[in-house]
C-alpha cells in the first residue's frame, strides 16, 4: 500500500483554480519529485498535504488513514516530517537543542516542568545529527550555521519523529551546486535505508533527474505527467511546458 495517497484534490482561490482534481501516490522508500513552472500549483498542493490549507474537495490519506483538513501539528503527529524552502530553525538554541525540542514534542513532554530540556534525549539527538553529518557541530548555536548546514539540521529535526513521509519544499533552494548534490544524496540514502516516502518540489532539474525515482508534473493546476524520469523527460506535453509553447505562449497568438 502507498504511504501517501492523494485522490481528486482541488483548491480554488476566488476564480483561480489553483489545483484541479489531481491524484497520485508515493510508496515507501520512494522519492517523488513534484515539478512544474511558476504558478503551476506546487505550493498550493504542498500546503494541502501538510495541513496549512484545507482542500475544496478530494482526499489525502497516510498509510490508509484520512488526514485531509487536519492541522499541521496533527499531521506531524501522524508521521509527516517537513522541511521548508527557507529554513526554519530555533536560532537561540544549539544544534543539539534544536533536535531535542523536536524529540521532546514527539515524546509528548512539552508540558513537563521538572527536568532540564538539555538533559532529555541527548543521545537520540546526537544519533540523528550523526545521520545527517552534523555531529561535530552539535554544540554550536543554530544562528551561526552555514546555510547548507542549516538544511541538514532541518533534515535531522524532520526525522525526529521517525516519519513515514517527508515533505520537502525546495530542499536545495539557496545552496551551491555541489552542496545540492550532497544534500540530496544524503536524503536519498536515509529514506531508502529506512523506507521513508519523500515528496519534494524542486526547481533544479539536475537534482530532480539525478535523485527522483518518479516525477509528477503540474501545469496550471493539472497533473500532466506521472512517471519515471526518462518517460517524463520524453513526454511531449512536459517538453512543451518547459521548452516553450504551453502556458507561456499558448494564447499569445
Amino acid at each position, binding site marked *: 500500500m502507498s504511504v501517501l495517497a492523494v485522490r481528486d484534490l482541488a483548491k480554488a482561490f476566488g476564480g483561480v483554480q489553483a489545483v484541479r482534481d489531481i491524484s497520485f501516490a508515493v510508496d515507501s522508500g520512494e522519492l517523488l519529485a513534484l515539478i512544474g513552472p511558476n504558478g503551476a500549483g506546487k505550493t498550493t498542493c504542498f500546503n494541502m498535504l501538510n495541513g496549512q490549507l484545507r482542500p475544496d474537495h478530494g482526499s489525502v490519506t497516510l498509510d490508509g488513514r484520512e488526514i485531509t483538513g487536519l492541522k499541521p501539528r496533527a499531521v*506531524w503527529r501522524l508521521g509527516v516530517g517537513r522541511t*521548508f524552502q527557507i529554513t526554519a530553525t530555533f536560532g*537561540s538554541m544549539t544544534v543539539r537543542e534544536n533536535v531535542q525540542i523536536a524529540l521532546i*514534542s514527539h515524546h509528548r513532554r512539552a508540558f513537563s*516542568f521538572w527536568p532540564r530540556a538539555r538533559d532529555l534525549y541527548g543521545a537520540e539527538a546526537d544519533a540523528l545529527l550523526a545521520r545527517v553529518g552534523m555531529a561535530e557541530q552539535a554544540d554550536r*548555536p543554530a*544562528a551561526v550555521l552555514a546555510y547548507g548546514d542549516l538544511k541538514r539540521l532541518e533534515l535531522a*529535526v524532520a526525522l525526529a519523529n521517525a516519519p513515514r513521509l517527508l515533505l520537502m519544499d525546495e530542499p536545495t533552494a539557496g545552496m551551491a551546486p555541489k552542496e545540492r548534490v550532497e544534500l540530496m544524496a544524503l536524503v536519498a540514502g536515509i529514506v531508502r535505508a529506512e523506507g521513508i516516502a519523500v515528496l519534494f518540489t524542486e526547481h533544479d532539474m539536475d537534482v530532480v533527474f539525478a535523485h527522483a525515482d518518479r516525477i509528477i508534473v503540474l501545469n496550471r493546476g493539472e497533473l500532466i505527467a506521472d512517471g519515471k524520469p526518462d518517460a517524463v523527460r520524453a513526454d511531449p506535453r512536459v517538453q512543451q511546458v518547459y521548452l516553450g509553447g504551453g502556458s507561456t505562449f499558448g494564447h499569445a497568438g
Partner: protein
Amino acid sequence: MTLADITIQLLNGLAGASSLFLVAAGLSLIFGVTRIVNFAHGSLFMLGVYIAYSLTDQFGRGSPLAFWSCVLAAGVAVGVIGFVVEILLLRRIYQAPELFQLLATFGLVLVIKDVVLKLWGPEDLLGPRAPGLRGAVQVMGKSFPEYDLVLIAVGPIMLGLIWLVLNRTRWGVLVRAATQDRDMVGALGVNQAWLFTGVFALGSFLAGLGGALQVPREPAQLFLDITVISDAFVVVVVGGLGSIPGAFLAALLIGVIKAFCIGIGDVQAFGTTFSFSKFTLVVEFVVMAIVLVIRPWGLLGKPAGEPRHTAATEAPLKPLPGWLVLGFAGLGAALLVLPVFTQSYLLILLIDVFVFALFAASLHFLMGPAGMVSFGHAAYLGIGAYAAALMVLRAGIPMEATLALGPLAAALGALLFGWFVVRLSGVYLAMLTLAFAQIVWSIAFQWDGFTGGSNGLIGIWPPAWAAEKEAFYHLSLVLCAAGLLALRHIIFAPFGAILRAGRDSPLRADAIGIDLRRHQWFAFTLVGAFAGLAGVLHVFSKGSISPETLGIARSVDGLVMVLLGGVQTLTGPVVGAGVFIFLQDEIARRVEFWRAILGLVIIVLVLAFPQGIVGFLRGRFMRAAA
C-alpha cells in the same frame, strides 16, 4: 435622550476627535517609518498645551490672527523640540533592540514632565479663549461653543493636508515607501537619517499642534502626558498602525463614543445604577480590545512587514558556571543574616527590591523566553494584591492562605485575558495587555464600595508572627527567591524550552507538533501567578493598596527594570529591579526633580548599555575571557 441631545453629543465627540487625531497621526507616522513606539508623544502634546498657553496668554488675546499664530507657533516649537530630540537621542539608538527605544522615550517622558513642572508649576492653567470665537451657536435649541465648531473642521482639514504632503510631494512618497519597507528605501540611496529626523519633527509638530488647539477648551495639566499617550495609542492601534485615515476614523469613533458615554450619564437598570460617565475611563480600551480581537491589524491597517535586521539572536542559554552559583548562594546567605547588622529602613527598601525583582522576573519571562511584550503587567501584580487585601478585610482570611489564593486570583485574571492576548503578536499584543490592565485599573478605581475606589484599602497587616520587619523581610526573601528560582528553572525545563523555540520560529514549532498558542496562554497564566505573589507580598509590606499599584506607570516601571537589566539575560531583571528601586529611593529622597534625574539616568544607560547592565557585563566578561 432627545434628538437634540444626541446631536450635541455627536458634535462634542467630533470636536474632541480632532486633537486626538493630530496626536495619533503623528504617533502613527513616527512608528510607521522609524518603528519607534514613542512613549513621549503624550509629553510632546503636553508641551504643546503649555507653550500655547504661555504664548496665547501673552500675545494671543487681541485678534484672531494673533491667537492662531500663537497656536501654530506652539506646534512649530514642539516640532523643533522633536527635531532636536531625534538628533541628540533617537538617532543613536535605531540599531538598538526595539524595546530599548521604548525605554529611551520613556526616559524622555520623565524629563519632560519635570521640565514642565519646573517652568509652569503644578497648578492647572486655563488659557484665554479664542478671540472672535468666544460665543456659542444654537444647535437645535441648545448652545454649542463656536470654537468647537472650528475644531470639528480642523480634523478633516489636517487629514487633507497630511494626505497632500504624503501623496503629492517627493518627501511624502519616501515616507510612504519607508513605512512599507525602510530597508529597501535605504538600499535605493535615500538618506534615512534625515528622513527619520523629518518624520519625527513632523510627528512632534502634529502632537504640539493638537495640544495647542486644546488650550481654549481645557486647562493645562501635568497628567496630560499619560492620559493622552494612552488615548493616542488606542487610536493608532484601533485605526491600524501606520494608517493615517485609520487614525482619523478611530479618533472619530472613540471621540463620539466617549462623548455619548458622558452624555448618557447614569442609567437605572435591573435595580442598580450603571454610570456611563464613569465608563468613559475605559470605554476606549474596551473598543480597542474588541477591534483587536475581530481585526487584529486595526480597522484600516495591514500586517506590518517584518524588519530584516532584528536585534542579534540570543546566544543559547547555559546553566550558570559554578563560581556564579556560589556567588548567588553567598549573596542569599548574606541577605538572610543582614537583619542582624542593619537598621530597618534598608530592610524595607530591600523588601521592595525582592518584590519587584520577582515582578520584573515574571515580566521578563513573558518578554524574553515567551516573546510576548506586555505593557500591562502591573494588572496581575494588582489583582494579586487586591485579592489578598479584600480577602483579609472582607472575609477575614489569614495572610498565609492569601499567599496561595492571591496568586491564584491573578492567574485566573491572566487566564481570562491571556486567551485574547495570545491571538496577537508584537505591538498589537502589547497594546491589548495595556487595554486589559487599564480595564482592571478602572474597576479598582471606580468600585468605591468594594475596592475603596481611588483611596484604596488600608489596614492590611501580616499576622503577629510576621508583623516584625525582620520576620516579614525573611518571608519576602524566601518566597521571592523561591519564585525567582522557579521561573529560572522553568525556562530551562521542556516547557520553557518549547516557549523559546516557538519565539524563535513559530513556523517550525507548528511543524513539529507544538500548539504554540496554548503554550503561550499557559505561560501567560503562569507568570500572572508569579506577579500575583509579588503583589500579595507588596500589599502586606505596605499595609495598604491603591489603584496606582496596577496603573500604567507601574507597568512601565516593570518594563524599565527588565530593560535596564537586559532582556536577553536571566539575572537582568533582578539587577534591574535593584538598581531601579535604589535609584528611585536615593534620588527621590535627595532631589526635588527626581523624575527628571531618573529619566536622564535611563537615557544615559540606554545610550551606554544598549544590551542592558547585565548584558553589558556579560559582553565585557566574554571578551575578556576570549
